């Protein structure tokens, strides 16, 4: 083997390996999107046409549509609430000169390491124990589901806002204070605008994480109202046509819109 081929061969292998990896990452969403526009119920290779009939047909499947609204509402409420508790927490951690800061950060990020189903089992058990001891029926209501989604979205807000605050210059805040700005004015006119990219990224990540979560909702959202990922999970075996592909493509579009919004909002007005 000449020296040139011996240098090229590893590069070629790495390039092919990378192509394989990206192909694996793209395959599943592409399959869903492609099948959702199929004119026939059976999957055809190559596709014989293009049709929107499965999207129109979604109107006749209330369980999937109800799941979509439930998931959108849950994600909106959970990410909003996560912002209300997560942004102040990040402010305290970044500027509060607290003792044991590292440990507090670890506690607030710890829900990320909890297996979703374990948390679901725990919350469901807690709800049935509450029902037995106090007669308060929590299982089947929105309370455990909302609490669980709040728990897993707080780390996303906290981490993103904390990173933004740590990279922004505290000197600017000190200057504002020394020029006579009140602490509240400094917070709202200097600190929070400076953390804008982190707040936007955190809240939108929280929305997307809640919207797509399955493991928590599986046990906590059973019954008449289910979230969309649970409804899709149940529907996979029931439909032998692209109905599930159509509603799945809608979820991909929702997350795509959220990602574009994150990109736009974190840039707009962030530079004075």
């Amino acid at each position, binding site marked *: 083997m000449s020296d040139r081929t*011996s*240098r090229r061969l*590893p590069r070629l292998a790495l*390039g092919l*390996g*990378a192509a*394989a*990896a990206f192909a*694996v*990452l793209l*395959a*599943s*969403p592409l*399959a*869903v999107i492609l099948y959702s526009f199929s004119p026939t119920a*059976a*999957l055809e*290779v190559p596709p014989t046409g293009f049709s929107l009939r499965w999207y129109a047909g979604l109107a006749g499947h209330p369980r999937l549509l109800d799941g979509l609204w439930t998931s959108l509402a849950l994600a909106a409420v959970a990410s909003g609430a996560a912002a209300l*508790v*997560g942004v102040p*927490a990040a402010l*305290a951690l970044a500027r*509060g*000169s*607290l003792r044991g800061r590292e440990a*507090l950060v670890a*506690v*607030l990020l*710890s*829900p990320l*390491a909890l*297996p979703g*189903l*374990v*948390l679901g*089992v*725990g*919350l*469901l*058990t807690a709800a*049935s*124990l509450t029902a*037995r001891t106090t007669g308060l029926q929590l299982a089947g209501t929105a309370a455990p589901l909302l*609490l669980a989604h709040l*728990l897993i979205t*707080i780390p996303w807000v*906290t981490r993103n806002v904390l990173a933004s605050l740590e990279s922004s210059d505290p000197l600017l805040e000190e200057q504002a204070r020394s020029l006579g700005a009140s602490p509240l004015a400094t917070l709202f006119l200097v600190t929070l605008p400076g953390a804008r990219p982190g707040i936007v990224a955190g809240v939108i990540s929280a929305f997307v994480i809640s919207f*797509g979560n*399955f*493991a928590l909702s599986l046990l906590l959202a059973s019954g008449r109202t289910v979230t969309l*990922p*649970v409804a*899709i*999970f149940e529907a*996979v075996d029931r439909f032998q046509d692209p109905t599930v592909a159509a509603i799945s493509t809608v*979820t*991909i579009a929702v*997350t795509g819109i*959220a*990602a574009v919004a994150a990109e736009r909002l974190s840039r707009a007005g962030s530079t004075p």
Partner: protein
Amino acid sequence: MDSPGDRRRRRAAALLLLPALAVVGVAAAIPVGVLVRVSLIPPGPLAPLEGGPTLAAFRGLLAAPWAEVAGGTAGLALATTALTVVLAFPAAWVLSRATGSIRSVLTLLVVAPLLMSVVVRAYGWTLILGARGFLGESLAAVGLPRVGLLHTGAGVLIALTEAFLPFMILALTASLDRSDRSLVDAARGLGASPASAFLRVTLPLALPGLVAGAGFVLVGCLSAYATPALLGGSATRTLVLEIYERITIHFDWPAAAAASLVLLAAATALLTATAGFSRRRSATVFGG
């Protein structure tokens, strides 16, 4: 040494931190505490939520079907981790060398799947891997026999690999970005073959990312429900599927609670060990 201003600042900070800590405390600590209590109740189908304390539920985990299911789950997690490393390394290598808009596009391709629901991604693989899916139909279209991987271990392995590949690519890219490429050039200049430069320079530099990524992938596989359930059919039993059935079919809460706690302990130990190793290792490799 504390000025009154410092103390006031600290008190305000504690107040701001309180709501988040309260939510995490209520929503994470109470379920784990309840699991501990329930796991000490005598297990069995339709077990009442009282009695004990006994370790019978934990002893039950040593018997069938748990031991076998746990072994199968661990094997699946290890195989998935190995496959993600093999696929992620070239992707991370390309990513760490890309610049400008190519790098932005490639990063987006890696991150985008993480934004989609695991259920949707697993469903996509059922469309690909079925005998009447994209794979089977493509084979038939070119005159080859239809092959389907749905409801096989191989199908679960492929879908799990895709599910956790982004984490491994991101972790490896972070390590490769931090390592000094001139070290590889130096090794080559001093006469190392490409293979030995890779094995003795590039790989050790990437090790912190590899171990951190492996921790994520292993824990992710141990916790996965949707992917094995949709792709494995009845062919695949995993720990989490078994826990779910204990609750929804057998109403055996103590057994489910005990298995959940073991899973939680394994996940915590794996993440702590891999993150700790990765931190120490990058401190030695990159000098703190």
